[in-house]
């Protein structure tokens, strides 16, 4: 096995990891702040991809603005869903189960809406001009678009780090033990915060979907695979644990990239295998103290 091949897989693993991380951090964000588990998070990823397709391939907006528009649109749909539906079940007994149910309904609805609007064929977005080729390092070719994804990921990580450690909102979000009552006691307008944070989280998901679209074709129903991958990331890293999720994403991204290279036929199994092994040997997650996961 030559070095160039390994390095190429490595980079492709990193860009996959970045996508996983971006998506999973949306999932973690709304769970950390509002104790809301958004089972439909993957559907917002899918919506983002379709919005991106609509805006760039159909309406002809340049790629990068289109990504932002797609993210924003997904975020608006997200906020609306929270405002119209989710907030009606807060505080119920067994709220967790109802959250899953309600967001499950959203998956069914969004999947079908997407089919109604865009049909069920594959859709793809062209890579932006300037990111079509590859850079050569030694005898390793690295697609520039993959590098761009990694760069976007790093940017988001830096921004997130800044928000989490330097702003009041971030510090509140980071105290992952917060629940809605405590937020209320801190003088936060809780309903508004939840709507906004839900919007942000889903916008992150939507933007990730649009970013991923040039690499992985978009289909209705893509949401569920993504949510499971994101969940595995979160299981590896620990829910609400931002950095843990990053490591979890890198681990999963690399495992997937090499699985695709060596055993393409069975590659879809590897995420699950990593998860099962983690559960057997480190049930408390690779990076999180056990306490956090009992939410």
């Amino acid at each position, binding site marked *: 096995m030559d070095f160039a091949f390994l390095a190429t897989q490595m980079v492709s693993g990193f860009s996959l990891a970045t996508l996983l991380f971006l998506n999973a951090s949306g999932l973690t964000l709304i*769970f950390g702040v509002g104790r809301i588990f958004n089972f439909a998070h993957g559907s917002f990823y899918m919506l983002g991809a379709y919005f991106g397709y609509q805006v760039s391939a159909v309406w002809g907006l340049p790629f990068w603005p289109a990504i932002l528009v797609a993210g924003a649109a997904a975020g608006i749909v997200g906020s609306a869903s929270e405002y119209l539906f989710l907030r009606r079940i807060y505080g119920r007994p067994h709220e967790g*189960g109802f959250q*899953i149910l309600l967001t499950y309904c959203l998956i*069914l*609805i969004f*999947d*079908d809406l997407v089919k109604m609007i865009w049909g069920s064929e594959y859709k793809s977005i062209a890579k932006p001009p300037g990111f079509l080729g590859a850079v050569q390092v030694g005898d390793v070719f690295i697609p520039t678009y993959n590098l761009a994804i990694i760069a976007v990921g790093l940017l988001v990580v830096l921004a997130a780090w800044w928000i989490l450690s330097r702003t009041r909102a971030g510090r509140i979000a980071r105290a992952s033990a917060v629940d809605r009552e405590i937020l209320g006691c801190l003088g936060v307008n809780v309903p508004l915060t939840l709507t906004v944070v839900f919007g942000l989280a889903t916008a992150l998901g939507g933007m990730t979907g649009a970013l991923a679209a040039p690499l992985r074709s978009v289909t209705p129903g893509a949401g569920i695979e993504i949510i*499971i991958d994101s969940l595995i990331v979160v*299981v590896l890293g620990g*829910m609400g644990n931002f950095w843990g999720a990053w490591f979890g994403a890198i681990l999963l991204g690399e495992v997937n990239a090499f699985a695709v290279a060596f055993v393409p036929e069975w590659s879809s199994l590897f995420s699950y295998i990593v998860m099962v092994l983690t559960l057997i040997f480190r049930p408390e997650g690779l990076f999180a103290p056990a306490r956090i996961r009992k939410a």
Partner: protein
Amino acid sequence: MDLPRRYKFGLLWTAGLLVFALVPLLMTSRYQMNLAGHILVWGLFAVSFNMLWGVTGMLSFGQALYYGIGAYSVGLLVTRVGAAWFFPALGIGLATAALISLLVGLLVIRMTGVYFTMLTLAFAQLAYQVTLKWRDLTGGDDGIQGIIPPGLLADKTFYYYVVLAVVFFSIWVLKRMAYSPFGLVLRCIQQNPERVRFIGRSVRMNQLRIYVISSLFAAAAGALMAGMDSSIHPDMLYWTTSGEVILMSVLGGINRFFGPFIGAIVLILLEDVIGAKTEFWPIVIGSVILVIVILFPRGVVGEAQHLWSRFRGDSSQRSPA
């Protein structure tokens, strides 16, 4: 009419049995009998699932795994080894489901809440992927066709009555269980797991027990379905199958033993009517359940009973969960 509960239940039970028993005699088309058979099998699947969720509070999103194990055990053995293997296959399916649910259960019951739900989902998806990819054994996404049970069972009407008997018997067993001391402990676990430990019972042990039991009945439902439709498909293990029983339970009401069964009737009939008119069935059911979750959390049966008791001025109703 103020019959004691026991008689009321017996009446309903007999009425239900009669209705389903009359289906092959009254309905002329095989299609309608098949529909009734589907209701029975899904009803069993949903009721067994609700022992986990409605009773114990464990929302599994992966019961399709065991449903699939039952279906593929029968499908594989009957088509590869011989029709005579139908009953042994049923037994092997149940044994496999017991073993796998024990192993998976040991891993997933260490988690609570959302983690539990998502891990059960992940395990079922793992099984789905294996079924899809292991073409040599399972036929991949072609599934397996031509599963003809042996002897008399090959006759669709006879098979229907066997399904009827097995389903009613299984549901009766589950009902006894729900009102046994074990069932009481399960309900207590849902309401206050900490207190359960402080009456000297292990929460995990009992959760594991009901996880295995529920999975056994899911496997039985899958096995029955394989013989009824004569064909199986990896979609039986897909997450939407697990979702289906969840929807049935919510529709009917998770706090009533028969809620999920009623939910199965409603959902399958609706799907039959609406699904025939539009391919966008999921959006319809998604919206219906959304409304139910937000406005009528008790489900059809629970809401009806609630109205009835309000009408009679009786306040001793259990709270909506």
